[in-house]
């Protein structure tokens, strides 16, 4: 996992916070955020079978404030539950990029950690966090519901302590992730989302956001401008 350390909450550099209560508010926001987690489970492999017991009456994840959500726009957690083939990985990346920040990724099963039993497969992405910033891995083949819940609680603890900021890494080091993606999918890889624009929107662009891979992307990317509302007779 990339060593990104603890990124300060206020991203706008050079702006000193003068409000003495700012820290209190931050803690309050983090507390609330950690207790309202909507997860989008991208059930790619056998790990998905451990989710029904984790979510339903026996282990009842909802008592911790975690519940399923149907679209990425409203979800906080992307749950990748097993091996990701190259074809699937494209979809996982698109889904992740469509989620709104702050967003978190949990990799379940050994396959997401290091390829697991698919280590020798030619069609499988081995290490998930080369392509997406992963907050928490839950190892095991497959991990039991208790382990899944433990992983979730770890994520919640991280968020509450202000440590769950892997999503910022995706914007800050976009070139690295894009490079790995291009290595796997080819140079003409592109999604309809606009990551660099979003990085600018959040004020998270660094010199590592750009690089040789973003230049390759810029060469062939067709910007998708939203349809403008217009009155033309």
């Amino acid at each position: 996992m990339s060593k990104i350390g603890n990124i300060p909450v206020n991203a706008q550099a050079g702006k000193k916070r003068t409000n003495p209560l700012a820290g209190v508010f931050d803690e309050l926001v983090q507390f609330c955020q950690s207790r309202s987690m909507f997860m989008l489970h991208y059930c790619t492999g056998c790990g998905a079978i451990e989710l029904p017991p984790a979510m339903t009456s026996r282990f009842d994840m909802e008592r911790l404030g975690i519940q399923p959500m149907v679209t990425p726009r409203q979800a906080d957690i992307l749950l990748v539950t097993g091996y990701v083939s190259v074809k699937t990985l494209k979809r996982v990346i698109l889904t992740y990029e469509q989620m709104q920040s702050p967003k978190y990724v949990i990799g379940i099963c050994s396959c997401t950690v290091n390829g697991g039993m698919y280590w020798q497969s030619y069609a499988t992405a081995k290490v998930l966090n080369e392509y997406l910033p992963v907050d928490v891995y839950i190892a095991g083949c497959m991990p039991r519901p208790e382990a899944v819940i433990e992983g979730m609680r770890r994520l919640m603890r991280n968020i509450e302590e202000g440590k769950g900021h892997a999503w910022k890494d995706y914007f800050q080091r976009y070139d690295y992730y894009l490079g790995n993606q291009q290595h796997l999918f080819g140079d003409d890889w592109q999604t309809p989302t606009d990551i660099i624009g979003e990085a600018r929107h959040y004020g998270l662009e660094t010199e590592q956001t750009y690089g040789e891979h973003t230049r390759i992307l810029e060469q062939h990317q067709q910007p998708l401008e939203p349809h403008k509302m217009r009155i033309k007779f």
Partner: protein
Amino acid sequence: MSVLDDLLLFTALASVAIIVVRRFASVSKLSVIVYALATVLLVKMSALGYGGEPIYSSFTLNVLGQNLYWRFDSLSWFFALITVVIALFTSVFMSGAWAEKYCQEHSTEAYGLLQAALVLNVLSMLVLLASGDLLSLFIGWELVSWASFMMMFLNQDKVARKAAIKYIVYAMAAAMSILMAIAMTYSMTGSLDYVQIMQAVAHLSNTQIALLVTLYGVGFGIKMGVIPFHLWQAAAYAETPGPGAVFMGAISARMGLYALIVIVVQIFSLTRVAAIEIPYTFLNMQNILAWVGALTTIIPTYIALKQNDARYLLAWHGVGQGGYMLLGVMIADSIGTAGGIMHVFNYATYQAALFMAVTAVMFRTGTSNFSKLGGLVTQMPLTFMVMVVSIIGLAGIPPMNGFVSKWLVYRALLLDGEPLLFVAAVIGTLGTILSVYKLVHNTFLGQLRLEHQDVKEAPLSMLLPMLGLVLIIFGTGVMPGVVLDWVAAAQNAVGIAPITHNLGGIELAQGGLDMIWVTGVMFYGFAVGAIVFYFLGGKSKHIHQFDNYAGGHFLTSKVRYHYSNHFYAGLMHLIGGWYKDFFKKLEQALVSLVSFLSQLSENFYRSAQPAVLVAAVAFIALWFIMSSFSMPADTGTVAPITQGIQGGLPK
């Protein structure tokens, strides 16, 4: 010369003028001026809308010693105002770009005929609304039927022609039923005049009243398209050329309601109708009529839910909304009747606006098929706004005017202690909300198709009447008192206690309604939301339609991601089994029965088999002789049959 003379004469002369100049381009302008002047004449009669005395026409006829005359009372004026104003909006709508395109696609002659059909419809409706006795009512009724038929027959498509023929068959049945009822009324009361019949009704037996109400009800109900006569209307109205559908959909079928109010509510009075118990049930005649209204709200609305064509969806709603009016009128207290009559006005405004919006979409894209539309909101934002405001009215959601009349009907049902009818009306509203969402989603929301990337907004000549109607829909929603004044006068005219109201709504001891407050609170909520979204946050981000979640699938222009086919799959899983096409099958069974019988008699008539004919004639003759000995009373029925067959012997 009274103002009514002026109005009828003017409209008649205008019809002639429009028919004469129908091939020239000036016919559009002429028709707009005609309806504008007719509106002015109606405004001159506006005392009627505030409880004025009826205005009589100076033209009368004498038939069978009966005086045929024409007059306007408050109820007629209310309906006439809606008719003429909708015609005015329609004529503006069809005057500009739409006319050019229609002339190119068809011919100048076809467009002129459409204008002629429109003005003849208006004229015949005014004649019907002005009728002062049963015979003039029947004359007006027939004129309206044939004028409608002319309008429907303009579309040369096979489907449209079939629908028009179907309509005229239904209309003939209705006319026969009404004619029979009028003849029976005349023989029972000896008069055709409303006032004299009203006095004579007190002496009629319950059986006679029940028979008359049934015959009149069937006749007028067919025009309204109530259950089980609802099958003709949707296709006939939907297939009429754009502006024709606007006019017909908005007001034409309401003539049935007008006549029903005059005959059943005013002349027979609902207290008398309610006194007729249906044997072996706990229902009375009024309950039956109210339940017909309730079923008419439910069944056609849920048929509308399944339509895949915007025009058909709207036309089916037209049938369903008629049920609310009938239901409201049949509750027979001042609130319910007010709701029913007011719904005529509200419905006409939003139905016209909706048909105009759909016609505008058809004008730009060439189709009203949901499977070929979608995402037009960015291209036609004003038309979208018109449709949204109108469907809010149609679904009965504040602050639009449809809410007020539906509220009145619900309120009356609750106060009257009719929980089952109330639930039925609510089920109808649920279907309305679901299907209008389908309408706006499949037309304007979702994915914009590649071929519609360059679609423009509807032209101004079509937009202006739409926006005008939107203003009326919103204005009378916030200040329903304007319309309730007229409604109260109409109630007074048919002998029902007028509703107590003010500008904002209804005063009621059990809890009234003030739309000014309701709208104020709503807009306060909107303002708070707008401040939060636009000023405090301001973080919204516009994205391209392909940046959308499709289960992780990559969307391109080749991948359709607009959900329009089988739209309510989940709901249909629950209620789909209830669609049994019962009435359609019933109609088909009737049709095949009639055609079987006619085929049978024709074959028999034309048969070249003398042996069969001789045997048949011999048998019938023998029966005739035998029965004349034993049952002399039967001869009257048998004799004509024998004559008929003898007349048809092969040459």
